[in-house]
């Protein structure tokens, strides 16, 4: 599943045509949902599918269909040094993380056998973490205000 997720993420970034990019993104999100299932978090997994694949990816596809444009992004050749530097940094981070995970001896942590149910999650976010939920609502409101301000077409002379 990790391979599916990563492969489609890379595909979606490298795709020349934005439609393929969107489909790659959906595939990657699906891989993440499957990982959540494997991690005993069905609630998160279902929401991942419903919200991200069901809504976000489909919305992106619709937007692409409505605003159809050839060559939506110019291809920019990156400076030759940056690719090498990026690759070295990426490999270094992966190696460091891998060492940390191996060293950490994860098996000594007890895995929790019971999965978190919907009720448990609901209880937590409506009692202890209720303020976080409220602030999250503010985050959503802020993003909506921002998105509206950015995407609104200014009439001549009023912008």
């Amino acid at each position, binding site marked *: 599943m990790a391979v599916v997720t990563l492969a489609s993420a890379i595909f979606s970034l490298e795709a020349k045509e934005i439609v393929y990019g969107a489909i790659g993104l959906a595939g990657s999100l699906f891989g993440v949902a499957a990982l959540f299932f494997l991690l005993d978090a069905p609630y998160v997994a279902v929401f991942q599918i419903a919200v991200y694949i069901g809504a976000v990816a489909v919305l992106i596809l619709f937007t692409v269909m409505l605003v159809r444009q050839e060559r939506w992004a110019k291809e920019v050749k990156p400076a030759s040094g940056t690719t090498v530097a990026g690759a070295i940094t990426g490999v270094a981070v992966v190696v460091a993380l891998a060492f*940390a995970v191996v060293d950490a001896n994860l098996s000594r942590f007890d895995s929790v056998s019971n999965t978190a149910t919907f009720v448990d999650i609901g209880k937590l976010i409506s009692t202890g973490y209720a*303020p976080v939920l409220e*602030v999250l609502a*503010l985050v959503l409101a*802020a993003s909506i205000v921002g998105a509206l*301000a*950015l995407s609104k077409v200014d009439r001549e002379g009023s*912008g």
Partner: protein
Amino acid sequence: MDYILAAVVVLGAAALGAPVLQTAERRFRIGAYASMAALALAIVMVAANTVNGGISTVPYFGNLLVSDPLGDIFALVVLSVTLAVAVASFYSSPNGPNIPSYYSLLVFSALGMVLLSYSADLLMLFVAWELMSLPTYVLAGFDKKRVQSNEAAAKYAILGALSSAIILYAISLTYGVTGTTQISGVVARLALEPFNPLVSVAILLFVVGFGFKMSIVPFHMWVPDAYEGSPPAIATLFATATKKAGFVAAIRVVLVIATVYALAPNSVFTLANVLAVLAVITMTLGNVAALTQKSMTRLLAYSSIAQAGYILVGFSIFAYSQQTGAFAYNGLLGLTGSIFHVVNHAIMKGAAFLAAMVVLTQLKRGDLGAYNGLAKRMPITAFTLAVSFLALAGVPPLNGFWSKLLLFVSVINTPLAWVAVAAILNSAFSLGYYFWVIKRMYLDPGESTERVKEPLWSVVLFAVLVGLMIGIGLFPQQFISLASSAASSVIP
């Protein structure tokens, strides 16, 4: 603590209410007035909290927030800066139908920063971090028709999202090891854990994630472009408010965890050394790059990076003293200096950025050539810029001198003395470009000697800021003791 809740409610109401006024024709200024009033009211409430209830360090609000002097100081700084930015944008940006959204986003971001300052829980911290960041991505690109503004927004949003993801990864690693998101709980749990590479990775990821906002080298690439491309008032907000939020988050998480947990079982790869090395390369690169800049905003951006390096000096000595158990006094002194320098930097950089903004809007030029002979054309702006540059360079008796003194003295007798040497060399080096600009303004002949109008709002703001720089410089005791109480509240 009730004061903080009241401030949060006021800010939230203003942020949610302002865009509603967008529908009212020709009354879009009401949203701006309401936002400024809310910010002013929130400042009063946080100040009341500082005077009355700032002593309690017991978490409240479902154990998610904590009311302590550290939060008070940062909340006051970010709210005051946001108010100054709101005033500056009110008079300088063109009015349009989107203006209520602009103020709404400004207040949303301020609210996020206030919640971040008081966060006692990693989950709350992350949500507040997002509430602070999301509006600023939009604000950076608010000048929709300017290509540079779009570029700034895109760069800032992508790197900001990356840093958020890194922070989230660090939080989940921390939660995985400790089983709690409560910062005090994490500390209690880690005190029993001798060494766990996952926790070390999490701490380093925290440093990287917060480092993006703090503009530490090598996570600084977005800074000059984003500052230059954003609307100038928003660049002020980035340099003086969201950057400070990065510092308070680092104090709340990285330094608090550092009191009980060492990064590695040896004495070389310690958090203190990591921070010290970051501090030295940050200030050196910032100062060297600032020297070669042609545009004022970029010069200020690199100087802002260099100042982040000075602030990190106090962090590293604090981490060192906590982990070795030696030099406890130096550690506290260093963190006091850091917090004091954060406050001073907000004032100095705020003044410098606003002065640069006035020059940009009045002369329509942002390159350094526009500053030739500025003292004759815009004497008040030139004077403000000169004072803020002297303060940034650490010339006594201005405020920047005292915080730099605290920072340098705190490391001088410790094994980290090499940092002090680098910092003092850098400080002397930075005088080069600061005095160079002052020389341009006061000695070089300009293209004309005609007086250019300086708007009244800028004169009032500059008077307040220059007054603060000189006032804190002459009477620093009150501020140092406040910063010191904030520093000691970090140790659990």
